[in-house]
């Protein structure tokens, strides 16, 4: 682990801000420290410390009874979380890659999401399922999927997708402390990134709480001409697009949605009622993607103020492409800017 | 190296050198109850000989090869016949042969029966003494001899066929090793662990045949197979430029 995450640097050299994976590691560390019922498990999370080093050092610190490796069996990983939660544990399983979350869906949808209802509240599921998600690292098939709409459609689940390191830290702790099941989608492409986006607010380090409630979005760049709505790695891209737009005298607001279930309908409406235009950007394929839901919420909450139909910029309706084609598949700056221009009526 | 199966009356699973590999191929012949992977790959031999084209097979009755249950299928002649068939299939006119234990005995027999096919031979974990001395080959499950213990350890390995192994032992024992006549034109290197009981008399055999002999300190029959010193000596012997002087 880097000095940034352990805070053991010399006084003369201030530590650089933590990367997202270090911030997540710190959050897991704190969750394990504060509640002996917290368990971290999944493929390679123990001895190896995770294929992305997110769980680095945790097994050494908390032992192999609290941080442990599982077989390559996602249904078993999620199913184990159900039983552990019913017996008073606070499981934080990892599904190593988004594409391999599908085998776990039965346990997540039919058990984790419903148990609290089925048991009339006697068996809450304080489970946080971490899923390294989305594209951007040129990985092979099944290693770059966007499942947020799948999870958000399931009643009983909360879905989180942080966009930068400080927020990832806060949201993960919040998710683990919650007695409701949370599917926590970590943007792989931002794991190595330190701190907020280039034009984002001066975000506090992992030490500062600065906590927003579950379900709250945040404005990461204020603007008056249109609102870009995104989550995960696309927040960073929207901030880039806003910088380019500023060169043309166009002032874009960027909303980091953060929670994809529940969605901050009031926050979206507030922003778009000011800017009168909205573009929602996501990596997942367009059709039946979460952009449709966001668009509907904006339309319901700001219809009278909208100057143009809400635009969606998304992945194409094709299976996620091989690594070299990622740049063509993921929403580009030009596609985002073109969508903004469409809301201007030209 | 690539692995395939030679289709014959008794199918032979074999490993072939990479196409285009240069030099005299080295034929690795494993010991009783072992196989190519266990005897040569896991012990680091194929790593130590990585610069040479390496071939080998699972002997009949072993590993992924056919496993007849009659002793007549396991005479030294039958096993050597498989080795010659493999050399033919690989298009190898002449090879260097390295054998361990039973494989060393077969290397000797190959060099004796087909001297033109063998350039140099390394005989490891092997001596002229009868390996089956005192063994009750009809009741190996309760036999207390040294060989009985080897048999039981081998027959409990995953994939082992105890009936085939017992037949193999009977087929070999029916044709005891004789140190004369010896292969005439094939330079040999003998090697074994210092405490290898099955290699008793190795130095005598070396003197008789004019071969060089080498012992790995502290090793017995089971552990000498992985000894670094033996692998290195074999590699040097096989890659020596001029014909190796005898004696």
């Amino acid at each position, binding site marked *: 682990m880097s000095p940034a995450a352990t805070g053991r640097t010399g006084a003369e050299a201030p530590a650089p801000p933590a990367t997202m994976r270090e911030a997540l590691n710190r959050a897991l560390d704190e969750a394990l420290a504060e509640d002996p019922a917290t368990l971290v498990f999944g493929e390679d999370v123990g001895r190896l410390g995770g*294929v992305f080093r997110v769980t680095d050092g945790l097994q050494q610190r908390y032992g192999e009874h609290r941080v442990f490796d599982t077989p390559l069996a996602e249904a078993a990983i999620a199913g184990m979380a159900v039983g552990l939660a019913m017996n008073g544990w606070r499981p934080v399983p990892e599904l190593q890659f988004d594409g391999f979350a599908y085998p776990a869906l039965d346990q997540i949808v039919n058990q984790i999401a419903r148990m609290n209802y089925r048991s009339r509240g006697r068996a809450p599921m304080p489970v946080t399922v971490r899923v390294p998600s989305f594209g951007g*690292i040129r990985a092979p098939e099944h290693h770059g999927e966007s499942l947020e709409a799948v999870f958000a459609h399931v009643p009983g689940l909360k879905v989180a997708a942080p966009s930068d390191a400080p927020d990832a830290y806060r949201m993960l702790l919040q998710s683990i402390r919650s007695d409701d099941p949370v599917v926590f989608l970590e943007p792989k492409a931002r794991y190595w990134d330190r701190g907020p986006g280039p034009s984002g607010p001066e975000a506090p380090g992992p030490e500062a709480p600065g906590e927003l409630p579950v379900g709250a979005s945040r404005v990461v760049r204020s603007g008056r001409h249109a609102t870009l709505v995104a989550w995960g790695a696309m927040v960073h891209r929207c901030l880039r697009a806003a910088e380019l737009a500023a060169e*043309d005298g166009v002032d874009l607001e960027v909303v980091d949605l953060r929670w994809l279930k529940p969605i901050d309908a009031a926050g979206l409406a507030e922003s778009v009622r000011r800017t009168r235009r909205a573009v929602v950007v996501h990596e997942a394929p367009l059709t039946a993607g979460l952009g449709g839901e966001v668009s509907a919420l904006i339309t319901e909450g700001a219809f009278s103020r909208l100057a143009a139909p809400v635009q969606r910029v998304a992945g194409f309706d094709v299976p996620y492409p091989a690594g070299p084609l990622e740049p063509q598949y993921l929403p580009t700056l030009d596609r985002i*800017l073109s969508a903004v221009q469409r809301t201007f009526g*030209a | 190296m690539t692995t395939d199966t030679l289709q014959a009356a008794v199918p032979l699973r074999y490993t072939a050198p990479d196409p285009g590999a240069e030099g005299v191929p080295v034929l690795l012949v494993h010991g009783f109850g072992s196989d190519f992977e266990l005897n040569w790959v896991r012990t680091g031999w194929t790593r130590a000989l990585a610069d040479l084209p390496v071939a080998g097979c699972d002997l009949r009755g072993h590993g992924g090869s056919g496993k007849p249950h009659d002793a007549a299928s396991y005479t030294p002649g039958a096993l050597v016949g498989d080795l010659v068939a493999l050399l033919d299939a690989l298009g190898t006119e002449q090879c260097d042969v390295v054998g361990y234990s039973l494989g060393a005995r077969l290397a000797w027999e190959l060099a004796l029966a087909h001297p033109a096919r063998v350039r140099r031979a390394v005989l490891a974990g092997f001596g002229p003494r009868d390996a089956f001395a005192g063994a009750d080959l009809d009741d190996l499950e309760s036999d207390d001899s040294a060989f009985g213990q080897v048999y039981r350890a081998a027959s409990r390995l995953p994939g082992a066929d105890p009936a085939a192994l017992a037949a193999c032992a009977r087929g070999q024992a029916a044709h005891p090793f004789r140190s004369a006549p010896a292969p005439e034109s094939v330079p040999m290197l003998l090697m074994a662990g210092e405490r290898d009981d099955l290699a008793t008399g190795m130095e005598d055999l070396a003197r008789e045949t004019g071969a060089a002999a080498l012992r790995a300190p502290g090793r017995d029959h*089971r552990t000498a197979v*992985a*000894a*670094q010193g033996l692998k290195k000596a074999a590699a040097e012997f096989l890659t020596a430029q001029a014909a190796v002087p005898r004696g």
Partner: protein
Amino acid sequence: MTHPEETTFHLPDLGEGLVEATVLEWLVRPGDRVERNGPLVEVETTKSAAEIPSPHAGVVARLHAEEGETVAVGAPLVTFEVAAQDAAGIVGTVPTEEAPRRRVRLRPPEDE
């Protein structure tokens, strides 16, 4: 970016249900430079002898067992100093931040 980092290699599962192995002979000493897949140690199990190759390229920092000592599968065997690559993990590559490129130019809306 690279920086030296220690990594410990644990005795791997040798198959066949074996739970331990005895160190026959170390083929490296602390301070030795080893290549990935180079010979590291010879071990003996109840079923066979084997040579374990090095899983890393690096410098041997510490050996965790003496010759003749029995080591449980999963117990530390040797610690290496390796040049840590800030790699993505088992798959993928670390994304690089590129200068933004654009073709589309915007005109501000006329209704402001």
